[in-house]
């Protein structure tokens, strides 16, 4: 069955089969990590790998946090004892961001990106214009190595120099674009401004930032179908979109859990939580690595035929989540409140403490403040967050532009 629709037969395994096969590999990975990664030898000292045969057993293992990773790396550079390979087994080292180092092993498609590129419509022989950066961060090489595994040819464009990028695209006529969606927009705008045509571009794989539907539509008007991939510098590919654009399908060589932020406890299926990733590749065996990103499991299989679990796209950063009067408040909930009221341009939830009681104020930038709108927002917050909050109106530009959705001002005592 020469079906080019799927990258390999792993994508269409029955769910129970995938689960059992992944846990066979996980047991091997845990044994390997205990034996070859000094840090995991410590962290997993009381763990019997053979007993970790399902998700409930996995949920008892310690969570690996980025903060611990960077502290361990300071003590024991470059990888803090987490890597499980000989120095000669590594091809490259990256620093992304700043003080955190990541390795690249020698195996082909080390970050497993070929699967995502295949789902995005890239095929053997395609020329790809890759605008992810090739230095400091692994992003450029991540997709580069995936593209090579797929049999594509890569123009290593890197970031910036928009006019040179345009000239290269016009001359080489690549079929695919890889990079951030916002840089693609810059390229398209510049091309329009200069009257250049980039008609060779037909497919795109974008990552690194959220892709608003409006931008996707705009890119689509230019004749480029872009699909998203979700990856981090530490664990590589986590999930990817397929042509049906219905959620992001998990990669076949990671085990993903969605947990209460700040804990290792899985949330009930479908609820928003922090993404924990356990990799099955041996060189850098991160176990229950906390990405700091929020998402939720989407029920049911993808209409495209891939059977792996899907997650919703990126739903905010977990580290902005907070607990108010015993209840978690997530940025995604605030986003929901904002999306329900057209009048709100931007908003931020400020949490503070008065007389030993938590108080919440949603500060909203609105064009036309009204009592009715204020009351409606208060009701929505109560519905969405199950908490009372007051609402304060500000004019346009009243909130600082720092990406914060929840600002927890409570003093730490």
């Amino acid at each position, binding site marked *: *069955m020469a079906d080019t629709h799927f990258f390999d037969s792993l994508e269409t395994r029955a769910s129970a089969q995938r689960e059992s096969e992944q846990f*066979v*590999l996980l*047991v*091997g990975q845990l044994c*390997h990590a205990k034996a070859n990664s000094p840090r995991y030898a410590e962290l997993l000292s009381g763990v019997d790998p053979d007993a970790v045969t399902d998700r409930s057993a996995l949920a008892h293992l310690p969570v690996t946090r980025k903060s611990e990773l960077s502290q361990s790396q300071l003590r024991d550079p470059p990888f803090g004892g987490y890597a499980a390979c000989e120095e000669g087994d590594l091809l490259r080292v990256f620093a992304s961001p700043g003080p955190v180092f990541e390795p690249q092993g020698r*195996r082909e498609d080390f970050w497993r990106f070929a699967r995502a590129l295949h789902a995005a419509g890239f095929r053997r022989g395609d020329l790809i214009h890759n605008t992810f950066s090739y230095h400091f961060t692994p992003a450029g090489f991540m997709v580069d190595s995936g593209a090579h595994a797929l049999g594509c040819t890569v123009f290593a464009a890197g970031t910036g120099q928009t006019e040179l990028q345009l000239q290269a695209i016009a001359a080489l006529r690549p079929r695919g674009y890889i990079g951030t969606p916002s840089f693609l927009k810059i390229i398209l705008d510049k091309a329009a401004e200069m009257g250049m045509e980039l008609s060779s571009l037909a497919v795109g794989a974008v990552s690194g930032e959220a892709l608003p539907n409006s931008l996707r539509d705009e890119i689509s008007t230019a004749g480029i179908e872009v699909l998203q991939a979700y990856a981090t510098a530490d664990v590589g590919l986590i999930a990817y979109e397929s042509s049906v654009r219905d959620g992001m399908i998990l990669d076949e060589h990671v085990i993903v859990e969605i947990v209460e932020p700040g804990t290792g406890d899985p949330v009930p299926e479908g609820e928003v939580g922090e993404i924990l990733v356990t990799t*099955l*590749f*041996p060189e850098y065996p991160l176990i229950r690595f906390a990405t700091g990103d929020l998402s939720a499991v989407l029920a049911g299989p993808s209409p495209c035929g891939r059977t792996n679990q899907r997650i919703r796209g990126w739903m905010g950063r977990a580290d902005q989540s907070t607990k108010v009067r015993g209840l978690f408040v997530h940025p995604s909930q605030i986003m929901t409140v904002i999306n329900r009221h057209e009048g709100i341009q931007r908003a931020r939830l400020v949490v503070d403490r008065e007389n030993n009681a938590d108080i919440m104020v949603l500060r909203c930038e609105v064009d036309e403040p009204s009592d009715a709108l204020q009351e409606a927002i208060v009701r929505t917050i109560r519905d969405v967050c199950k908490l009372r909050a007051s609402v304060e109106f500000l004019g346009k530009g009243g909130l600082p532009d720092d990406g914060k959705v929840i600002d927890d001002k409570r003093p730490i005592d």
Partner: protein
Amino acid sequence: MEAALSDEAATLLSVNNIEVVYDHVILVLKGVSLEVPEGGIVALLGANGAGKTTTLKSISNLLVAERGDITKGTIQFKGESIQGRSANQLVKRGIIQVMEGRRCFEHLTVEENLLTGAFTRSDGASAIRRDLELVYTYFPRLKERRNSTSGYTSGGEQQMTALGRALMAKPIMILLDEPSMGLAPTLVEEIFEIMQQLNQNEQVTFLLAEQNTNMALRYCRYGYILENGRVVMDGDANSLLGNQDVKEFYLGVSGGKKKSFRDVKHYRRRKRWLT
């Protein structure tokens, strides 16, 4: 299964629930169990990629060369565990694999190739000479071509050389991987005939991996069908030949109306090692 074993002599080889992972992340065998009786000819059947070669290489310990690892399960030969023994030691114990694609030493003559098969023996030149003549009685064609460079002999002759070379090690059991590959049907038949004679006259036990299901089941007494790294069906050759699904999916005989691939049922076999 019970019938097949009770009719035959004792179990020579027993593979119990082995799991094999390549390169740390590719799970190829997902719990394969099988038994080969002493003096038997057993076939491992299934499509490309089902795990036939991996099963053979697990037994002969040739996985290491391909970064493969048996992560679970046991393999016993004559009741003793043989895991972790080098391929070299296994040959001395009587297990030898004839690899897919013959793998003759192309620059050596046919006879030199045959003699390399006796490398692990220590019973003297005259015994080896005697066995060389024995090989030539089974493969008269090799005698004719004994001084030809192997690389210039035909595919069928190379397959005969590979099988003859294995015989020179005085094996108890030969693991024969895809002998039919790339050979004309009459030649395949000839090779299988010789396998049968060696089995009857020299008491060599065979475990054969084949995609040519029809031919294999005519010469084997028992067969295992592998699908996606698991044994999905096993039975004596006649029952498999008569099985409707085997006919349809492995013998290419359509029973009644044509089914599309989507309707193909994939077998799920109960794990008998758990009982």
